[in-house]
């Protein structure tokens, strides 16, 4: 059985092969592991990998698998091989809010010429203000949202021409 996960923008391939009580796992066609003693109980998955026991808390939803290993969390995303639009936007033509929050200020107007790095919007969430910088030099094409309004996570606030 082959699984693919996206972690920090990288795709990882996991091959699971079951033989008797063991799983043989190959990660990215390279790293091999022998996994035994697999147990699952509601939100805990435990197994032995190379003689070490792991107890891993786990929650899977549609798109993501959330894991906690020794206090460190990992979020594995379902691999969608085609690059998302958001990813594109981030790199080039717009500024979006990384989290839901309050749009505090948009210090530019449509038609303004802006330099790379200049603040295009300030979003506040959980009492912290975050300045969203322009990804490049350009001209402001469109502004979505008004000062004082709530914005969604990943909502595009300022688009560049």
């Amino acid at each position, binding site marked *: *059985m082959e699984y693919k*996960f996206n972690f920090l923008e990288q795709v990882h391939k996991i091959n699971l092969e*079951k033989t008797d009580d063991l799983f043989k796992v190959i990660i990215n066609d390279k790293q091999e592991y022998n996994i035994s003693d697999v147990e699952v109980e509601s939100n805990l998955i435990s197994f032995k990998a190379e003689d070490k026991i792991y107890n891993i808390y786990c929650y899977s939803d549609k798109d993501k*698998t*959330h894991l*906690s290993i020794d206090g460190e*969390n*990992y979020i594995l995303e379902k691999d969608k091989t085609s690059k998302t639009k958001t990813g594109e936007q981030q790199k080039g033509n717009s500024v979006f809010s990384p989290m*839901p929050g309050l749009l505090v200020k948009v210090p530019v107007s449509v038609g303004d010429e802006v330099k790379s790095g200049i603040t295009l919007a300030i979003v506040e*969430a959980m009492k912290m203000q975050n300045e969203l910088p322009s990804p490049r030099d350009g001209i402001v094409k469109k502004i979505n949202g008004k000062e004082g309004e709530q914005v969604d996570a990943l909502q595009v606030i300022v688009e560049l021409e």
Partner: protein
Amino acid sequence: MFKKILIANRGEIAIRVARACKELGICTIGIYSTIDKKSLHLRFMDEIEWIGDSPPLSSYLNIDAIIKAAKQTKCDAIHPGYGFLAENELFAKACEDNGITFVGPNSNTLNLVADKVASRNTVKKVSVPIIPGMEMTCTDLNKFKQAAKEVGYPVMIKASMGGGGKGMRVVHNEKDLGKSIAISQREALSSFGDDSIYLEKYIEQPHHIEFQVLRDNHGNCIHLFERECSIQRRHQKIIEETPSPVLNDKLRIEMGEASKKVIEASNYTTAGTVEFLLDKNKKFYFLEVNARIQVEHPITEMITGIDLVRQQILIAAGEKLSLRQEHIKQNGHAIETRIYAEDPDNNFVPSPGKILYLSEPQGPGIRVDSGIYQDWNVPPHYDPILSKLIIWAENRDLCIKRTTETLKNYIILGIKTNIGYLKRIIKSPSFCRGNYDTHFIDEHEEKLLPKQEKLDIALIAGALSKQVGFAKSAINFQKVSTIKSTPWQEIGKWEICGQ
């Protein structure tokens, strides 16, 4: 004693206060904003009142609405918690005008300690050293420039009503002054409902050490020793411990006595904190008085055995302090780590959202002051604090080990938290040696990045969970008949299906 207290706050501190009230036989009135309708703190209240829409200015900073709720429910006192209106003299005044006891110092004292300049003059008179800085709050950029020149850059801009790092900015040169002032003002307004700011000389490489003090209306005053709060990010404390690894007994006594002098000179009552900076030559400076119960108060409770919120309420009710300075001892060691909904691996972006799975640690020496539950949606409108993990142990080494092990067993899935980040700090050699100042976070930025050492294990677990999740849905069709005699086993027992 009071009959009913309105708790003008939310989250873990509202619950903390409610516990103290219940133990005193006082009824608790909770308040909530629209989005907090299902927040955990409401489960600890005898009555609840809606006080406004979700944004803080409409609700938890809405003095009129809160006073109205208190009058409607016939409360005789209001406990403000920390943050929001906790140190707002207008709020204290509104309570006084309506015959409601504000659990905290009175509005005059709040005014005095909030006015950092007046406060500094008061402190000067009783010979406690202070940091050079502005003589008043203002909005005039030129006055800021002049003051900055006088004390010399770098300088620190601070919110008058501030606390918790909100509205604070270090400025290294005149060019950045204007912008920083603007940001500080905005943050101050949104956090405290007041945009007054001021400026002070910035002490480099300092330890942030504060002393907990209690003083009653009859002039009795004690301190409950220090808290070391130098692990800060953007002037926001994230880990606190007591005793401080850098104080010696002589300095501890000196600073403790200085704290009491400050509190007495301000005619301050109930629970307060006197903050100091300690420079590398172990010279200390008065910083400010925090006129509230603080986020980090539990570590003091753990090593002294004194319930600070209980004392605060008793004093507000006019009782005499029954504790004597000579009876207050530091027993063992305590560390608090603040659990935030934020993503430390991505510039600490706030991470509100749904908690899909929660398992909070428990056991010897473990205290969790929590404001969350599984399936709850952490709202984006408020401070990202989710809970506090407070660990007590016989000594510092053991306390560090226990904190590390406990953080590993603090499971929050669904939103990003700083748990892994806290663990990395606690495990770092500098922290373990007790060798750190307020620049620890900046200096260790690289070292504190996640190593993703267990990525392969995570990938294996992810794949197995998918595989097994598939098997799980088949369980209804599969009867386990081997151990007929224990029916619950049939429900619980199931094996990985073969391929």
